[in-house]
Each structure stands twice: as structure tokens, then as C-alpha cells.
């Protein structure tokens, strides 16, 4: 078995909160506590947790944007900056409103000084996410939320990453558009041979897009396993609570 792409061991991250009382020491918030897992090559891993679970902090540590207080995050690959990319939750703040789409998508290529025919790369990336290359001349505000998310994905793919982290990629999108973006991520994973990490607060998002699921709560991993097992026979009571609280359609109409 090949070595994991990411190895996370006993990862702990604390934040010092601003002082609330003059003479008392400031309180600390433990965002992550002893988190350990492997990210296997080529897999699609779902990280599920509610607010305060630490999932966003985990991503920042994996991207090396912050350093852990204890424990290690090891990336087994070449250049982290090039090979690990991220797609964010909010399609509005993810794109610089003053830049044209073409410049946005190619920005990582320019910053990393990657060689190549830029116009050709742009065209390929835009087509890969279902947009026309001509859209490169327009500005982000001219696109809908779903389209902006596609642009953000194109940007993430520009440096030909090996790992794609998606932080709640569909939470801010309309329901009718979510499935499109999730399908897109799955297609791209196959087409670009990516390892995918999908962070969500909603288990239903990961049910059909992830091979394995990691359930987090208050900075700790409470359960990890392959998706089918987690959904059919969850072991931890929190996982069960998460599953039970997903509202389901009682009456399901005929599938068109």
C-alpha cells in the first residue's frame, strides 16, 4: 500500500482569546485536540462536523497557513504550495472583485511561476469546470454563485494539484445547483487524479461523494470509517445524533 498523502498525528491547536478581565490570564480556545488520521492517495475523504468542530482549523493546518501547537501534519509529496489547493465556502469572498476571471484563474500559475501556454491552460481549465474560455474577460460579479464556485475550482486546478481541499463548497449555493458542483468535483477527481477532502456540516453532502468519513466534534475526531458503514451502523452517539437530525422527506415522489 502506498504511503498516505497526508499524515496527521496528535494535532493540537490552541488560540489565545482576547482578555476579558484585566488581571486574569487570557482564556484559550482549543480548536483541535489530538487529531490523527491519514489521507490516502486517490481517496475522497469527507470531514463532517458542526460549528466549533475544528474542521476549518484543520484545513488551515494542512495548508501550512498556521502552525500546530502540538503534533504534526506531514505532507508526503513535493511542493505543498503547488500540490495542495483549496476551494472555499463563500463564492463571493473567494474571488477578488477587481480582477478579471482569466487573471483570477491563472493567478496561482503566475505566483508559482509555472511554465506553460497560459491562454491554452485557461481554456482547458474553464472547459473542465463547464464554463467558456470567453468568460475569462468578465468580472466575478457578473456570474451566479454556482458559476463563481466553478471559477474558484478552476483556479484551484490551475497549478495541477494532487490534493484538493473543499471547505463547505456547496453550503452557500442554491439547492438546485449543489448537485452540479458536487458532480463536478467527482468528475474532476477522476479526470485529474486528485485526492479530495470535502469538509461539510451536512452528512448528506458526503454520502455520495466520499469514500471515507471523519466525524469531528469540539476539536476531536469521534468516528472515522468508510461511508457506507458510517451511515448504516454509526457507532458513536454523536454520529447517530447527526444522522438522526437530518430532516428527511417522508413522502418521496416518483423519480422523473
Amino acid at each position: 500500500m502506498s504511503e498516505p498523502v497526508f499524515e496527521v498525528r496528535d494535532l493540537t491547536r490552541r488560540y489565545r482569546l482576547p482578555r476579558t478581565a484585566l488581571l486574569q490570564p487570557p482564556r484559550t480556545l482549543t480548536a483541535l485536540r489530538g487529531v490523527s488520521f491519514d489521507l490516502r492517495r486517490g481517496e475522497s475523504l469527507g470531514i463532517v462536523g458542526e460549528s466549533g468542530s475544528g474542521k476549518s482549523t484543520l484545513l488551515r493546518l494542512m495548508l501550512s497557513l498556521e502552525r500546530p501547537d502540538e503534533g504534526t501534519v506531514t505532507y508526503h509529496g513535493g511542493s505543498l504550495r503547488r500540490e495542495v489547493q483549496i476551494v472555499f465556502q463563500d463564492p463571493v469572498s473567494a474571488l477578488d472583485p477587481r480582477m478579471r476571471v482569466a487573471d483570477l484563474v491563472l493567478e496561482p500559475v503566475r505566483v508559482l511561476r509555472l511554465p506553460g501556454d497560459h491562454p491554452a491552460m485557461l481554456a482547458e481549465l474553464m472547459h473542465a469546470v463547464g464554463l467558456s474560455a470567453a468568460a475569462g474577460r468578465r468580472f466575478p460579479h457578473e456570474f451566479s454563485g454556482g458559476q463563481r464556485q466553478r471559477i474558484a475550482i478552476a483556479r484551484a486546478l490551475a497549478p495541477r494539484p494532487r490534493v484538493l481541499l473543499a471547505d463547505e463548497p456547496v453550503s452557500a449555493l442554491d439547492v438546485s445547483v449543489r448537485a452540479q458542483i458536487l458532480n463536478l468535483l467527482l468528475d474532476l477527481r477522476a479526470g485529474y487524479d486528485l485526492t479530495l477532502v470535502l469538509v461539510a456540516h451536512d452528512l448528506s453532502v458526503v454520502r455520495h461523494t466520499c469514500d471515507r468519513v471523519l466525524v469531528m466534534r469540539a476539536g476531536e475526531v469521534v468516528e472515522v470509517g468508510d461511508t457506507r458503514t458510517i451511515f448504516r451502523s454509526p457507532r458513536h452517539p454523536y454520529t447517530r445524533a447527526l444522522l438522526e437530525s437530518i430532516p428527511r422527506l417522508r413522502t418521496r415522489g416518483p423519480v422523473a
Partner: protein
Amino acid sequence: MKDATLEVRHLTVTVGGMRAVRGITFALPRGRRTGLIGESGSGKTLTALAIMGLLPEGLTAGGVAMYGAEDLLSLPDSRLCELRGDRLAMVFQEPMTALNPVMPVGAQVAEPLRVHRGLSRRDATLEAARLLERVQIPNAAERLRAYPHQLSGGQRQRAMIAMAIACSPDLLIADEPTTALDVTVQAQVLALLGRLVDEEGATLLLITHDLPVVDQLCDRVLVMYGGWIVEEGETDEVFGRPRHPYTVGLMDAIPPLDEDLPDGRLRAIAGSVPGLGEFPSGCPFRTRCPRADDACAVMPPLAGDGHLVACWHPFA
């Protein structure tokens, strides 16, 4: 409709010369729960704001919204202020911005009681404590003095619900009340909302994009798209036998939890929701509809018996 708390006829909302709500007609049966489903651009929030007289500057409402013998859309501000908080109440999506951050929660919950019932500060505070208990906030008496930022998201939303039911309103409009909450808290808050509405005998209008929520909580459902109502009926009917292609598409787009998908792909509706002013003429859904044809260049009327649909080619 026989006994309706609210009867809306040909409601329009105009933004900068464009119709965001295009002339919708519906009624809310007394004491029952109606869900209003829509995504961005459907006009669902503007509908609620128009009814409550809370449209922002620059937006105009047309049509009629009959509450009893009064048309809410043509009432003077003074009368609307009397009704709001007392007979008509609203719960918003984002509790952090809907609650006043520099006022203790107890005072905010007590406010409608003091304004509309003329209670003294002491009596209103006592009642506020009782309300906080009803919405299941632990240590209600202590929590009276807490500020919104000291409460969790779920508690803030409960506090807002407490504020809304303080004067036993006839109509309670909840606009995406649980969207901003954690999933485990959502279920509790929704259950609470349903229970309180029943206890008070109030009429509920629940606005959301989340179909399963409507299925669980509401008796009737209205589906909006592009400023029109495209389907309407009893929840069991609409979800059991959806007729409008948009409703079908929405239901299909929900990832099933207990089964696998054929070919591993989620079902999606093609295209994206157009921005304001970019909806096609005629049926707003026709650019995304697999069943559309030339007839759809004309907007179909909302028609049917009990289960209404606005479509030239509905499912049977």
C-alpha cells in the same frame, strides 16, 4: 378560502423597475402551517417582508394582503406598528443580527409585552422569564440578563421565537429560521416552533429552501420560482405526487440518505438560477426545464383542484 388568517391577492414587489414578485395569490388557513419553498431570486423573502410592511427603501409592493378586514399593504405605518409584534410576528434567519447586541435578551423578549400589552417592567420581565422557559432555554431567570453574544446560536434563535410569540400572534412568519444553525440544533428548534405554534393556535408561514423541513413541519406548501408560485397544495399531495418540473427537480436534487445512486451521480437541475431581471419571459423555469417547448413562452396560470400547478406540461 373559508377561514384564512391572511389572503394575498396579486401581490407584486418591484425593485428598481423590475418585478421580483410577479402577482401571486394565496391564502393561509387559520391555525395551520404553510411552507413557502424557494431559492434565491424566487421572491419568497420579499413576499414575507411585503406582508409585514418591512420592505426596504426603494421597493414597492402592489396588490392586496387581507388580514381580516384590513389590507396590510395599504395600512398607515402607525397601524402596522400596532399589529407587528402583537398580531403579526416574524422570526428571521440570522439571530445575531436580528437581536439587538447591546440590549439584554430578557429586555428584548419583554419589549413586545411592554409596547403592546402595556405591562410594567416587572411584570414583563416575569413573563419574559416564563417565555424563555417555554422555548427551553436553561436557567431562564439568569439568562434574562445575558446579552445575545453570550448565548449560543440555537439559544438566540429560541429567544427570537420567544419574542415572536410573546403576545400570542395570529400570524407567525419564520424566514429560514434554522438555516444558520447547526444540524443537531435545527431539528430541536423546528420541533419547538411547531409545538409553540400549535399551542398558541397561530398560523405559521415557514419560508425555506429546505424541502424536508417543510415536509416534516407543514400541512400545506407553496413552491415559488422567479417571482411566481408554480405549485401549491397539501404537503402530502405535493411531495407525494409532484407535478411541476421544478418541484420534481428539487426533490431529485436532494441526496438520498438510505440508498445509493445509479451511476454514482447526484441529480441536478441544469443551469443556474437567473439573477433579477434575467428570468425569461413566460414561464421563468423554461430555460432549465427538460419539458419546455414553445408554449412555455406564455406564463401558464396556477390552476387545479386543491393541488394547483402553473405548467403547460406538468407531470400527471
